[in-house]
């Protein structure tokens, strides 16, 4: 095992009484975009939550820079790693600016006032998601795509080297899915942020990720570069799907065409 970055060591996870992940050991590549893929109920979201310490493993552990996640101080961890859960619900009437400002929470002292740095980082986050013109708008008045970008701005404002997202593209149309994923990729390229996202769409995942983690009903099927992971054999193994994998004419990445 290396001692850098985010990794799992013989990790076992249960959801209630049902064990969904057993003895999983893997390394999330540093400063890359990683997607977690797999059929419904395979434990994708559960794995992501464990990586962010939102659930406690039943066995093994998650490590960040060689240190067990459970041993890291809550606030210290929140400065290292941000997580955006699936379909978060905004408080009634909250504005974009107010939402994004709350991303600064782990960086602010108990009674410390709002600092210039806080303001600058929030402004930068809003600009990266392209909402700088909408700061005073209530979240409920935004379109689905804009709303999702506002939530992403919140975790960008948290300013962490690790960014975890649970199905950030759910409920969005294709254009907005592309927009959100390009934005995450841009963040990775500009800041070296390690991005880990649970995604549903194999083709989008293959297109935007440097690394894929493919889970099946019985745990890890494959992990590696998109063209190593997205193969006809492995899709059959993970999804029970008969598909043709061709080369995406636009990006050269693997493209799944179900038979």
């Amino acid at each position: 095992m290396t001692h850098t970055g985010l990794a799992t060591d013989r990790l076992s996870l249960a959801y209630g009484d049902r064990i969904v992940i057993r003895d999983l050991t893997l390394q999330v590549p540093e400063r890359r975009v990683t997607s977690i893929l797999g059929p419904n109920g395979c434990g994708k979201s559960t794995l992501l939550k464990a990586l962010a310490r939102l659930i406690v493993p039943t066995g093994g552990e998650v490590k960040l820079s060689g240190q067990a996640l459970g041993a890291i101080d809550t606030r210290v961890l929140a400065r290292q790693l941000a997580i955006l859960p699936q379909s978060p619900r905004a408080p009634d009437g909250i504005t974009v600016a107010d939402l994004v400002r709350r991303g600064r929470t782990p960086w602010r002292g108990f009674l410390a006032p709002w600092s210039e740095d806080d303001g600058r980082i929030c402004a930068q986050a809003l600009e990266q998601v392209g909402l700088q013109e909408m700061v005073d708008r209530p979240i409920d008045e935004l379109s689905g795509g804009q709303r999702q970008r506002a939530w992403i701005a919140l975790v960008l404002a948290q300013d962490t080297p690790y960014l975890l997202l649970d199905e950030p593209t759910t409920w969005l149309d294709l254009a907005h899915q592309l927009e959100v994923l390009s934005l995450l990729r841009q963040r990775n390229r500009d800041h070296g942020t390690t991005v880990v996202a649970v995604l549903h769409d194999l083709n989008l995942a293959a297109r935007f990720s440097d690394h894929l983690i493919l889970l099946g009903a019985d745990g890890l099927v494959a992990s590696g570069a998109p063209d190593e992971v997205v193969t006809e054999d492995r899709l059959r193994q993970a999804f029970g799907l008969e598909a043709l994998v061709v080369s995406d004419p636009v990006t050269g990445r693997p493209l799944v065409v179900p038979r």
Partner: protein
Amino acid sequence: MKSSSLVLPLLLLGAVLLSLMIGQVVLSPLQLWTGLWSGTGPGALTLRVLRGPATFTAAGAGAVLGAAGTIFQILLRNPLAAPDVMGFMSGAGLAVVAGVAFGISLPLPLLSAAGGLTAAVAVALLSVRRGPVMQSSLTLILVGIGVSFLASAASSFLITRMPPQEAADAQRWLVGSLAARSWQHAAQVWGLGALMLLVLALQVRALKVLELGDELAAGLGLRPGRARNGLIGTGVLLAAAGVAVAGPVPFVAMMAGPLGMRIAKVTAPGARLCAAAMTGAVVTILADVVARSIVPGVQLPVGVMTGIMGAPYLLWLLSKEAEAGEL
């Protein structure tokens, strides 16, 4: 500063003035002013003995109840979640009645705090479900309504065993009453209220993160369980401070938050809490003014008036929630 943020302070000032002026004898502001500075005449008597203490007790009790209600409404994301609906105030009332019935000579705030906290723990324990399913806020509210009925019934039972005069007083107090309040009551609720509001002020930042949901809150470095328990404790103690001086006045805690939020046009938790405290004070003072002047020569308990105001609001809220599919 937006003009909408001035509405509530002005309303509060107006309500206080109205409450000091109106009663069996109507006084002019000039008479009150003279009484305040000279210490003699009808103005002075009204200010110092008759209406002053009741008005300031009403303001303090309304403020703590309003803030308490808003804490639960934000935490549970449901306008129905308030200490009056969820049994914390009935629990506090029961503890006070039991204290009187069994001759326990503890200070009322202590008794009501113990009763309120016990009710809160009971609601939490009774709502626990097995398995990974998170308890919904609706479950908590429904269990709370049950606990509320239970506590009220127990209070009524204890009252039947008291001597007639004591029973009548206790019955009146249980409706929510500001009759015969002294400056001691006012000082008590303002003192305890100020202390708890200070504690609450330190918890507002946690509340702002907590209202984004537990997972985001945890990701932002908060321990959601611990923060929530702290806020619940503050909310219950605030409500208990109100109950100790005014009895379990219904609906103020539930109405003040949503009403204040609309009047002041605010959405952030800190501003909502301030608006709710001021609105709670206004509502309680005005309800008391109406309660003591609507039937000449009779002072109705303030709780009767807040009940009359609150019941239609509750019905409207329920129909709205049912339409939105939240019930």
